[in-house]
């Protein structure tokens, strides 16, 4: 396959970044004078992309609104830090814009505050004119099959959290001692997992992947990753970019089954361009696929029309040894086709199973309506149904799908709804609300020590410093305790001494 050259050039990038930071849209040092008491106060729950994009747009379209972002972890940016793959640094450029929002004179960040636990949504509603729920999708959809809980079976969310340094996943230590890994699901997360499992270490070691994961991957015996989906090639959920990365991943070659693509080429005529190009790329991979061709020792491939039926244990029942897949056939056609079980099955020997069938939002507080079937907060254009003053954006609003631009647009739309409601009087801003002045003492009383945006910048510079020493863009801190210690330290000197301990 031809590798087209891309117009991305380091000096240009840095130049561009300078330009962005020079942009006057967000300039302005933090104003020393305090915000007028009478301004509208909005708080955003969740410091990921949805939260930051909502805050950004609120600040832009309203000249006086004060926005406070509450985040459970001591650090901002959510899945841009803990979801986006370490070898996708350019996606993380959105952090530059988020940082301008975090430093905005009418915005403050309160990290290390767990809404629903440290402070209730009701308490936030008392202190703010409006509360925007942007806390994302913290759960993983379960398979609901026997053997799902055996050692060797991991949720994609945990696996991704592990290589990206999410504190609660740092000790996952996935067992990578078998030759074949099976990833269930064919979305972009599934392809991220496959790519990380098969990437040459020389590529990974220059990224911000955690040092622990890098060591585990260096010792990994995984040589083949199969990416399993219940429907056919015309229904894969991943985007073409991710497939192109697999196709051009050094040291690997595709391991596909030509029979699964029978008749596909002929059916492409009336398919929309994106789907057509994606399918053509897969067909190209199939052609280069026959076993034995090429010298690459690592293999990746899609397996279509297969649904997981059971994780098969080792004879002593202690861990996963394989997976039984039910064979499906398709009914209907195109995007809306659905899988019907044929009753036949196929077993694949594998010691690692990663469940990547999707993330799932969880309810945060009994005071907030939640639709357990769709796993979202029921809303109309970001206005939470039957809950005046409550809004939502991002995955908790529309479900865990879409690229960064999707979340950006839907967050802008929620901000638009909220400001519109202020104008029409649907949202009452006539009373004075105390905002964080009421919440901060409450948190103090409960022994919670929030992390501000400038506190986070101390963590950031410590991580960058450690990364530089290791030839990486950053070495992430993995312990919440250490993050807090760094955030609340006096200055960089203190840090240097601490990190040498």
């Amino acid at each position: 396959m031809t590798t087209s050259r891309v117009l991305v050039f380091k000096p240009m990038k840095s130049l561009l970044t300078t330009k962005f930071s020079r942009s006057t849209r967000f300039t302005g040092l933090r104003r020393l004078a305090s915000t007028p008491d009478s301004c509208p106060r909005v708080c955003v729950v969740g410091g990921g992309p949805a939260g930051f994009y909502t805050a950004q747009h609120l600040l832009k379209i309203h000249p006086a609104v004060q926005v406070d972002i509450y985040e459970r972890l001591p650090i901002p940016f959510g899945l841009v830090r803990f979801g986006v793959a370490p070898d996708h640094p350019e996606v993380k450029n959105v952090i530059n814009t988020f940082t301008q929002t975090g430093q905005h004179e009418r915005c403050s960040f309160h990290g290390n505050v767990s809404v629903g636990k440290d402070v209730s949504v009701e308490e936030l509603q008392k202190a703010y004119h409006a509360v925007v729920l942007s806390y994302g999708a913290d759960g993983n959809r379960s398979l609901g099959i026997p053997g799902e809980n055996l050692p060797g079976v991991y949720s994609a969310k945990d696996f991704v959290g592990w290589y990206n340094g999410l504190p609660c996943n740092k000790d996952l230590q996935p067992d990578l001692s078998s030759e074949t890994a099976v990833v269930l699901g064919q979305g972009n997360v599934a392809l991220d997992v496959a790519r990380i499992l098969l990437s040459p270490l020389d590529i990974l070691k220059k990224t911000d992947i955690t040092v622990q994961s890098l060591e585990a991957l260096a010792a990994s015996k995984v040589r083949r990753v199969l990416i399993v989906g219940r429907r056919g090639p015309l229904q894969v959920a991943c985007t073409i970019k991710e497939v192109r990365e697999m196709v051009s991943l050094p040291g690997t070659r595709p391991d596909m089954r030509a029979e699964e693509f029978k008749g596909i080429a002929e059916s492409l005529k009336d398919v929309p361009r994106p789907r057509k190009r994606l399918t053509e790329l897969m067909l190209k991979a199939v052609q280069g696929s026959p076993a034995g061709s090429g010298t690459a020792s690592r293999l990746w491939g899609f397996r279509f029309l297969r649904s997981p039926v059971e994780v098969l244990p080792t004879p002593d029942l202690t861990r996963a040894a394989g997976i039984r897949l039910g064979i499906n056939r398709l009914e209907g056609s195109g995007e809306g086709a659905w899988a019907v079980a044929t009753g036949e099955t196929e077993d694949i020997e594998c010691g690692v199973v990663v469940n990547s069938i999707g993330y799932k939002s969880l309810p945060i507080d009994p005071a907030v309506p939640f639709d357990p079937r769709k796993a979202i907060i029921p809303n109309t254009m970001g206005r939470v149904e039957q809950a005046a003053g409550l809004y939502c954006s991002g995955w908790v609003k529309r479900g865990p799908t879409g690229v960064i631009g999707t979340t950006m647009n839907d967050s802008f739309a929620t901000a638009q709804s909220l400001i519109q409601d202020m104008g029409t009087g649907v949202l009452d801003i006539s009373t004075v609300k105390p905002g964080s002045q009421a919440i901060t003492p409450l948190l103090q009383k409960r022994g919670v020590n929030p992390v501000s945006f400038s506190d986070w910048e101390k963590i950031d510079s410590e991580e960058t410093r450690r990364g530089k020493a290791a030839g990486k863009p950053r070495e992430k801190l993995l312990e919440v305790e250490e993050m807090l210690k760094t955030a609340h330290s006096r200055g960089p000197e203190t840090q240097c001494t601490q990190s040498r301990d």
Partner: protein
Amino acid sequence: MKPARPGSRAHNSLTPYVTGHRDAACIRSRQFSCYTRTLRSEDKVTIHFINRDGLKMTVKATPGDSLLDVVIDQNLDLDGFGACEGTLACSTCHLIFEEEVFKTLGPITDEEMDMLDLSYKPTDTSRLGCQICVHKSQEGMTVHVPESVADLRQPDVGTTSSSS
């Protein structure tokens, strides 16, 4: 939310990549323009942007700059434009060109097309602003900034593929 990155690994390590003669020139002049911001006004190129509300914004652009540079430098009010800062990891700088101008824009890479495919309703004359360099021959051209979602006033329907 996971847009991704051009397929080539080398790109990842930020190895200089050029698409061809034209783009190499674009990069050179981009660096050059960094030091000579005070080009005489007659060297500038007039470009009209039509924003999402149908409003026309006219700017004088420096040859060699990308259209993303132009939007940022001139502080054009286009929400969310250029989220990934010109690294082919999103499609927020999607622009629609006039057919005659489009033909002169040079070849499109697979990676740019991959991102355009993720944009909302790409057209036959769509390109990403970060990949297009201002050129004297574009004097007086009009580019449209298309809607980025179906309609902000309609309830959102998440249809894109699952991803992070």
